[in-house]
C-alpha cells in the first residue's frame, strides 16, 4: 500500500464506483478443493485461499478467515471441527468467579493463533493490490463462548462484577492478538462481536461497548483501522452506543436498515460562519463536500445551529459552495 489507511478511507469517499468488501475467505476451499479442516490448520493453504479469492473477485479489501473458535481454543475450550462448516465450541470453560480468577490469558501464538498470524503474513505477500484486514473475535462474544451464551446473559444481571472480570481477560487477549497482526503489517482488524447483538441496549452499553472502545483506542491509528462487525438482531437499538466505539468502519447484518440512516453536518458555525470570512466559509464547505459530498447517505449542513448575528454573506458563501459542487 502506497498510502496510509486514513488516506485509503478518504479516497473511497471520492470514488464513484465503489467495490464491495464481503467477509469472504472460507469459500476459497471450493476453488482450492481442500477440506476446511485442513485449511484452518495450515497457513500456506489459508493464504492461498485468500489469494484465490482476491484473484477471482475485485474487492476493496481482503479479509482473513472469520473463525470465531481460534481465540476461545487458546483459553482451553473444546472445539468440534468439520469438513464443511466453521469450527464450533463445545461446552463451557468457566462458570463462576473462582474459575474466572484462575483463567490464564494465553500467549499470542498458542494453538491456531500462530497459524492464523503466519497465514496473514503470507497473504500480505500474495495479495498486494488492496489492504488486508485480520478477523478477530470481539470481547463479549469471546466471553460468551467461554461461559456459554445463556449463562453469560443471565450473569450480566446476576453477577455483573464477575462478567466484568471475564471481560477484562478477553479484552486483553484480543488487544494482544490484534497487536500481533498490526506488527506484521496488517492494515486493520475486523472485530466480530455478534453475541453482543443479542443484548439489550443497557447491557450492551455496560458489557460490550466500553471494551470495544478500549480495543479501538489501543490499536487504531492512521495506518491500522478497526472495522466493527455486529450482525446481531438488536443493532438498531444499540446503534447510538455502537458508534461511540470509534471504529472507522461499521459492518452490520440485516437487522439494521442502512438506508434509514443519514449523516449530516458539519461546517463549523462558530469558527467559519460567525467568525470567519466569505473565503474561509467557502473553503470549509468545500472541504466537507470533498470528503462526503458524494456519499449517498450524506446531507450537507452546518455543525450546529448558526448564531443569530452570523454574517449573511458567509451563509451565502456556504450555499454558493454547495451549489457549485452539486451542479458541477
Amino acid at each position: 500500500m502506497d498510502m496510509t489507511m486514513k488516506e485509503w478511507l478518504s479516497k473511497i469517499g471520492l470514488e464513484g464506483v465503489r467495490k464491495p468488501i464481503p467477509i469472504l475467505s472460507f469459500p476459497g476451499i471450493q476453488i482450492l478443493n481442500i477440506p476446511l479442516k485442513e485449511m484452518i490448520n495450515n497457513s500456506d493453504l489459508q493464504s492461498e485461499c485468500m489469494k484465490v479469492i482476491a484473484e477471482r473477485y475485485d474487492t476493496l479489501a481482503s479479509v482473513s478467515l472469520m473463525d470465531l473458535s481460534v481465540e476461545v481454543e487458546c483459553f482451553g475450550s473444546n472445539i468440534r471441527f468439520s469438513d464443511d462448516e466453521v469450527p464450533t465450541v463445545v461446552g463451557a470453560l468457566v462458570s463462576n468467579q473462582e474459575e474466572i480468577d484462575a483463567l490464564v490469558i494465553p500467549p499470542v501464538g498458542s494453538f491456531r493463533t500462530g497459524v492464523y498470524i503466519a497465514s496473514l503474513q503470507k497473504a500480505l505477500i500474495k495479495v498486494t493490490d488492496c489492504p488486508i484486514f485480520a478477523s478477530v473475535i470481539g470481547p463479549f462474544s469471546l466471553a460468551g463462548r467461554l461461559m456459554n451464551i445463556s449463562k453469560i446473559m443471565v450473569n450480566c444481571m446476576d453477577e455483573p462484577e464477575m462478567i466484568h472480570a471475564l471481560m477484562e481477560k478477553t479484552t486483553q487477549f484480543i488487544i494482544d492478538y490484534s497487536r500481533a497482526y498490526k506488527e506484521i503489517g496488517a492494515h486493520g482488524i475486523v472485530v466480530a462481536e455478534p453475541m453482543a447483538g443479542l443484548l439489550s441496549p443497557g447491557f450492551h452499553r455496560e458489557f460490550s461497548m466500553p471494551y470495544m472502545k478500549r480495543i479501538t483506542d489501543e490499536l487504531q491509528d492512521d495506518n491500522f483501522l478497526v472495522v466493527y462487525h455486529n450482525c446481531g438482531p438488536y443493532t438498531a437499538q444499540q446503534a447510538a452506543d455502537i458508534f461511540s466505539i470509534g471504529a472507522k468502519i461499521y459492518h452490520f447484518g440485516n437487522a439494521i436498515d442502512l438506508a434509514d440512516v443519514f449523516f449530516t453536518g458539519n461546517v463549523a458555525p462558530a469558527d467559519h460562519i460567525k467568525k470567519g470570512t466569505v473565503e474561509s466559509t467557502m473553503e470549509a464547505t468545500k472541504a466537507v463536500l470533498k470528503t462526503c459530498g458524494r456519499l449517498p447517505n450524506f446531507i450537507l449542513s452546518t455543525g450546529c445551529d448558526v448564531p443569530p448575528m452570523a454574517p449573511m454573506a458567509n451563509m451565502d458563501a456556504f450555499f454558493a459552495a454547495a451549489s457549485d459542487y452539486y451542479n458541477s
Partner: protein
Amino acid sequence: MTQLVRQAIDEGYDADQILNEGLLAGMSVIGEKFKKNEVYVPEVLISARAMNAGASLLKPLLEASGAKAFGKVVIGTVKGDLHDIGKNLVHMMMEGKGLEVVDLGVDVPAEKFIEAAVSEGTQIIALSALLTTTMNEMKNVVDAVVEAGIRDKVVIMIGGAPVTEAFCQSIGADSYTPDCATAADEAIRFCQKLLASKFPSTNSS
C-alpha cells in the same frame, strides 16, 4: 418468585390459578414485549428462570389435582448442530404458554425425535438449526416422521437463523416461525386446532 408463590399457596389460591393467572400470564407479557423489542434475550432467560422456580413449587400440587399441560412438544437442535440459545428460548416461551416441553438438547439425530414423539405422546416436533449445512437435517427429520407412519399425528415446526418460510415449505414441514415468542403462539394455535379437530395422539395408550 418462590416467596410469592408460597405466599399465594398459603393464602389458599388454587395451584392452577397461580400458574395460569400468575406465572404464565407474566411470561405472556414478556413474550409480547420481546416481540416488540421492549425486552431482550437476557430478560427472557431471567423471566423464564423465575417462572420455572415458581412452577417447581406448583408441580406436586398440579399433579395431585390431575391437571395436564395444554399440549406437549419435543424440541431439539438437529444433528450436527451444537447451538442451543434459540432452542432454549423457544423452550422457555412454550413452557410460558403452558405447554409441556421435552428437550432433547443439541446434535439430535432424526430417530431420536421420532422415539421421543412416540414415547412421550407429543403433538409437536420443534426443530432448531443455526447453520446452513445443518438445516438440511430438518428434511431428514420430516422424512423420518413420514417413514415412521406418524406424519398425520404430529406437527413439525422449524426455526433458526438460516431457516425461511420457503425452506419450510420445500421440506414439507408445517410451520416456520422467526422468533421464540411467535413459535410459542403458533404451538398453542396448533394445540387448539388439535383439540378442535381431535388429532389423535401418537401415544396409543
